[in-house]
């Protein structure tokens, strides 16, 4: 009796689903068998011209493109098993600071799936897409109210794209004022990496402002660095330590006096919804991360949406076209007179925008304020539970997130922030953000969000307090209950295998 040709990996074996075992899931390439297939196409009754009849020979590829050939059954098995190897908000708490991993209401999934939204071609004329234009216009209007700004572009597809858009607006503004020589943008040392990276891409230079003992922007250093070459300052408020920059009005005034503009990184907007507004603080440009504040799910890394709202004087520079209510009540696309141009192929991540709009309708003005209250209450309470066990580098009351440090624990028992993070995975929670902001050694940046209950917070606190009693060597073995154990990151970089095809010959 001979075995059949079974060169491919089995598709129907769930040994890699953690429910069952801890094997590696084969790649879809290993499951491939030449000639197997899942596809089917509709009947068209079109003439069956051959490739050679349709395309000049010089263009035709000499051999077929190699893709995995699998059955639908094996594809479904593969992807389903992969989901059993993936943590997510829907499985448990995700207190990843700066990322605002709140619960994403299922109603928003339904809204984004409506054929009247998802099935619309982006080039269809405004007359055929009045629903979409109105939705986007309404959303823009709401975002202006929430931020205290007066005009908005919904094109930027993520926060970083919003930053760059905002900085190009800053540049366009200065150029229009005959201030094209300005080339410096001030950024606190606690800022997220996208801020300086965006500054560079906008053709500006980053000037770093230190954080003072309060955990706030060092006002003296700011005064020191403010000069006629400053195009503006980028801040998030509350800052990445979760602390409110209480000098914000003075900061804005000082920068404005120096001829600069004030940019708001909206990553932390969740903390202040309905409580205070960047526009009222003196900001000129605001980007929002709808995937943080407005519950667009993160999708394993994206897509998000990063609208940019501006004060009146910057409105004419916004990217276009912009959905606009016309006289007569209809909607049309209008490009601002001095627009910096497009920043997206079409109209931004439209379905993500529709999700955020749905989320805002669900919550309303009253609900959004409750979001901020819940977010701050949860973070404040959790921080208090950890006090005395983890180092608290700054004393001020935090808003929606806070940073603690294992510096003392590391000194005493070798327990690093990374170990705490990996141990927490074993306890059924995602890890906090670690080693950010850079100004705090062994930082754990914790953002519980408003959607976690007190019971979950207490369980998280207990786990963190329990872990703090362990020593680094033992904790260093974590995580042991996850689909894979600690991963060799150095090897990944050294023997670079970015594709299945590179396995035989790693790059670099």
């Amino acid at each position, binding site marked *: 009796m001979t075995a059949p040709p079974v060169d491919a990996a089995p598709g129907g074996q769930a040994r890699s689903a953690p429910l069952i075992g801890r094997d590696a899931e084969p790649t879809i390439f290993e499951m491939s068998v030449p000639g197997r297939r899942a596809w089917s196409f509709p009947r068209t009754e079109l003439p069956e011209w051959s490739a050679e009849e349709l395309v000049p020979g010089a263009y035709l590829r000499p051999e077929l493109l190699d893709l995995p050939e699998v059955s639908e059954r094996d594809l479904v098995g593969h992807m389903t098993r992969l989901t059993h190897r993936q943590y997510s908000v829907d499985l448990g708490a995700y207190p990843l600071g700066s990322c605002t991993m709140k619960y994403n209401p299922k109603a928003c999934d339904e809204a984004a799936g409506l054929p009247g939204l998802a099935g619309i071609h982006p080039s269809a004329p405004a007359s055929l897409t009045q629903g979409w234009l109105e939705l986007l216009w309404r959303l823009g209007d709401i975002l202006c109210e929430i931020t205290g700004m007066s005009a908005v572009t919904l094109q930027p597809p993520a926060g970083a794209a919003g930053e760059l858009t905002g900085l190009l607006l800053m540049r366009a503004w200065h150029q229009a004022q005959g201030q094209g020589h300005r080339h410096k943008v001030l950024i606190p040392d606690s800022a997220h990496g996208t801020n300086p990276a965006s500054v560079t891409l906008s053709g500006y230079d980053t000037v770093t402002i230190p954080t003072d003992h309060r955990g706030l922007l060092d006002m003296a250093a700011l005064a020191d660095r403010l000069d006629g070459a400053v195009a503006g300052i980028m801040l998030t408020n509350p800052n990445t330590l979760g602390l409110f920059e209480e000098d914000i009005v003075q900061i804005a005034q000082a920068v404005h006096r120096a001829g600069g503009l004030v940019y708001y990184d909206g990553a932390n907007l969740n903390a202040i919804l309905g409580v205070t507004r960047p526009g009222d603080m003196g900001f000129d440009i605001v980007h929002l991360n709808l995937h943080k504040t407005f519950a667009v799910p993160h999708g394993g*890394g994206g897509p998000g949406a990063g609208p940019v709202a501006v004060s009146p004087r910057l409105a004419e520079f916004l990217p276009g076209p912009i959905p606009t209510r016309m006289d007569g009540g209809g909607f049309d696309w209008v490009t601002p007179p001095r627009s910096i141009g497009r920043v997206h192929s079409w109209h931004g991540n439209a379905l993500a925008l529709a999700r955020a709009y749905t989320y805002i309708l669900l919550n309303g003005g009253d609900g959004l304020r409750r979001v901020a209250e819940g977010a701050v209450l949860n973070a404040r309470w959790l921080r208090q539970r950890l006090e005395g066990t983890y180092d608290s580098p700054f004393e001020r009351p935090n808003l929606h997130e806070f940073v603690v440090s294992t510096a003392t624990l590391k000194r005493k028992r070798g327990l690093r922030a990374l170990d705490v993070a990996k141990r927490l995975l074993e306890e059924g929670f995602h890890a906090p953000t670690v080693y950010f902001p850079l100004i705090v050694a062994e930082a754990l940046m914790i953002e519980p969000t408003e*959607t976690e209950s007190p019971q979950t917070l207490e369980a998280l606190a207990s786990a963190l307090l329990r872990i703090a009693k362990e020593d680094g060597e033992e904790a260093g073995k974590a995580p042991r209950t996850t689909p894979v154990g600690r991963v060799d990151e150095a090897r990944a970089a050294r023997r670079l295998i970015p594709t299945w095809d590179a396995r035989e010959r790693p790059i670099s």
Partner: protein
Amino acid sequence: MGHYVPHTDDELATMLATLGLTSLDELFDCIPAALRLAGGLELADGLSEPDTLAAVAELAGRNHGGLVCFAGAGAYDHGVPAAARALPFRSEFVTAYTPYQPEVAQGVLQALFEYQTMVARLAGLPIANASLYDGAAATVEAVNLASAATGRDTVWVSGGLHPHWRAALATFAAGSGHELVDIALRDGRTGWPEAGSGEKGVPGALVVASPNYLGCLEDLPAARSAADANGARLVVAADPVSAGLLRSPGSQGADVVVGEGQPFGTPLSFGGPYLGLFACRAEHVRRLPGRLVGETVDVEGRRAYVTTLRAREQDIRREKASSNVCTNQTLIAVCCMVQLAWLGTSGLRELALRCARGTRYAREALLAIPGVEPLVDAPVLREFAVRLPVDPVTVIERMAEEGFLAGVPVGLTDGVACDEGDGRNGLLVAVTERRTRAQIDAYAAALEKVMV
């Protein structure tokens, strides 16, 4: 309403008491009083879930969703099978963050590893990243890479590049200082300057789309020669569906291949979220924008995946990063990966072939209408441009009444494709595998009717 804050009144009170506070307002005492909103936001109160969904559905109902779609221009009405509609939307993929903790993120990481492999094969290049925002963003990043690699700011941009992508290049050039030089189309394909003519400066990068915006297949070896003559890098923006039939750009000398991944598994979605495809030669890997997943092992030697070469990225390299991208389009990349696996080798070829057949058939049907002429005359694959005797904007409106989204108005100004009318009444028509002979016949008949 605050549907999604779970705390009961009792719990709020107890938690506040624990913090020594007596009201929720006091949580915000660290915010200067003058900054605090007195009356709250001027927004309506929250709605119930059914009322909310009804309100959004009402808006959705005001879009004309049922039209038979002949519009393309970078956004295509391809079929997405039920499996590809279901699998990527399992909540583990949807509600995960960027895989910062690889031990609990092998699902997303492996899917991205498989995605990267497929995109690299489509491009014919060894490296692909884990996605960028869209075709425009990928093109911008490619130009950044090529310009950094050559140290030269001049960029030759084919007149056949998508006008929106060209616009995005121009927007971001204001920051990067790149100098974009339009290279006009001749008979639908890029007329690269003669080697050594020097008339357009010395470029660090060439950007060409193939098939280009007018649907024409470009002569990529010619583009490669033009790049070589200038010591420039060649960026090719490719329609990934064409990979089913055409030679890969990488095999024809592209240094960087970019594209719009929407055709694989993503509905039209009014333009987003879409998917920026990005692949490059191995030598550029340290300038690669965005995230890259690599295979490695865990402590027990089991195969594992992790984001790698992170030192390029903004969170580590900050102002010196190769790109500022952080949140990308991971979920859409997973959709793409599932759709490509569903297609497989033979399915991708069949898909491209079916598009090409429909395109040929539709083109012949349209050109048979009196007054309709080719806009340009070069080989096409799945999209073509015609010149109408009347204004295409009006035609599109009238065709909608007949049940069709007729296409996208297209112009050609000084050899550069644009989406504004230029007096030539161009209409760009795309035909996917979903279009049947009956639909195309009806479309042509309707077009003839509405133009009289």
